[in-house]
């Protein structure tokens, strides 16, 4: 059964189309990912689904409730972790969660127990009476995820949940998030521009310039790009190339002194290749398509282009800061 159902959703801001006629369904108890570069329309879509924005046209339903007309019902059914921290840093972890429990009308006799539960769940129980301003980025994120779960929502929205976290915190957070659908029957709707994070999703929609350009399981999307790519280095590329082309009746190309060809099952091609060209082989490797390749093929650009440049600008400003203070 679909718990989120979106049809022909469009959102325009002063003539700029942020979300362009998108439609998708999310099955209950699954992890659904929105993958796309910054500015693709991911956050706008989340804001419409969680009733903070009205769409220009189209419809969106969560757990059977209309996101435009029954915003109160929708809000009860969802939990959200926004891209930027939305905690009160001057309150303790516990106070932040109690605030949330009151807002969502959690029964008074279950409130404390429930807050303690989610705190243990994200491993912050020992720190519950500390002010949030003393927390690290990873702890804040975990606390926000915990907060989003207090009222046991059917759907948990995570907008770039690991942005700004160190690799270890990211891994921990993913382990935790990927268990939620199974352990607590929570459907996850997440956005990310990290390819490796999108791999945990059951289904992914790739979004670029406000449009969904592909949708499916990670495997389906990768298969659509083509098979695996086998790279071979030999002592005699020209002849080896001809022989392999004859063997598979496939086009073999050459780049940086390496021959490469794409085949359905790379692993089974290798023995045949070696048998054919024998001792001339220097090395063989197989590259499996990544979501990055999917994105590259669909949009003609890599998803990281933008990200590296913003990361570079951070590094640049850190350097400038150091120069001033040395």
């Amino acid at each position, binding site marked *: 059964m679909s718990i989120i159902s979106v049809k022909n959703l469009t959102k325009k801001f002063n003539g700029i189309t942020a979300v362009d006629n998108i439609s998708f369904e999310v099955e209950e108890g699954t992890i659904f990912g929105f993958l796309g570069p910054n500015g693709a329309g991911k956050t706008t879509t989340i804001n419409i689904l969680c009733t903070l924005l009205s769409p220009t046209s189209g419809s969106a339903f969560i757990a059977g409730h209309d996101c435009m007309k029954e915003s109160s019902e929708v809000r009860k059914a969802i939990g959200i972790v926004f891209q930027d921290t939305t905690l009160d840093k001057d309150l303790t972890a516990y106070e932040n969660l109690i605030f949330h429990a*009151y*807002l969502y009308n959690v029964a008074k006799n279950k409130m404390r127990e429930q807050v303690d539960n989610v705190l243990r769940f994200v491993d912050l129980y020992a720190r519950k009476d500390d002010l949030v301003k003393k927390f690290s980025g990873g702890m804040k994120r975990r606390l926000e995820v915990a907060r989003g779960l207090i009222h046991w929502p059917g759907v948990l929205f995570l907008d770039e949940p690991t942005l700004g976290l160190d690799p270890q915190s990211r891994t921990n957070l993913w382990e935790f998030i990927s268990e939620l659908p199974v352990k607590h029957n929570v459907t996850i709707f997440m956005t990310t521009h990290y390819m490796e994070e999108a791999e945990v999703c059951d289904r992914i929609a790739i979004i670029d310039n406000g449009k969904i350009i592909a949708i499916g399981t990670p495997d389906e999307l990768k298969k659509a790009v083509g098979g695996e790519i086998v790279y071979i280095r030999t002592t005699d590329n020209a002849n080896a190339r001809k022989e392999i082309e004859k063997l598979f009746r496939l086009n073999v190309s050459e780049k940086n002194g390496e021959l490469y060809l794409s085949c359905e099952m790379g692993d089974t091609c290798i023995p045949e290749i070696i048998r054919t060209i024998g001792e001339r082989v220097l090395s063989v490797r197989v590259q499996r398509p990544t979501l990055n390749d999917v994105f590259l093929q669909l949009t003609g650009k890599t998803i990281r282009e933008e990200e590296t440049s913003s990361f570079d600008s951070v590094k640049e400003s850190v350097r400038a800061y150091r120069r001033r203070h040395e």
Partner: protein
Amino acid sequence: MEFNAIYVIVAREFKKFIREKSRLFSAIARPLLWLFIVGAGISRLVPRDTGVPYTQFIFPGIIGMTILFSSIFSSISIIWDKEFGFMKEILVAPVSRFSIVIGKALSGTIVSTLQAVIILALFPLLGFKLSLLQIMAVIFICASVSFCISTFGIVLATFYESYESFSVIMNFIIMPMFFLSGAMYPVRLLPDILRLVAKLNPLTYGIDAMKHAIFPHEAGPMGPDFSLTTDAAAIIITSIIFILIAGKAFERKK
């Protein structure tokens, strides 16, 4: 209306108020400066035979100032909440916008009434003799004025997105509201244009009502400028107008 939500919005504000010792300290220090330094200085310029002594005359005005500052500060915290993202947590909750506005208005009311009461407790130092009934009346007026100014502050906060706008609010709204409220000088002695502006200022009526309660028998130029009925009507009507505007302003979706 969601009472749980209103309660917790007020509780949060109150907790933060108690925790921030410096905020409490400056909230009390400011009126003391006005009362004992500015008041003492200006009182030398005011003839002694005009009615209540000047240091006593400004007492209701300084209570009004305490309320003005703390109510606006409390409501302006909405801008901080927007800036630091916490407002989103409130806005996506299944809570009506009206409850949020009421919660914020009551937060401001409670916090500033408390501060006003602390200043009010200084009355013996200024040579006043107030009956219990008078004290109760002043506290009641303080609460009503606090509510009114807090709702006004919420309306302000909905129009400003970042805290850089705070100095604009401070210089162009709070200070003129204070100076044109009958706090420092009787409204009836103001030049025509300024008197007109003072009459549009809700704080004027709040301070005037306190003058009624604190020196009820003073009929000269230092006494109240309006009737108590006018004061009450002005406070109630402006509160209703502001709360409706604030509710509407919060409701809008982009």
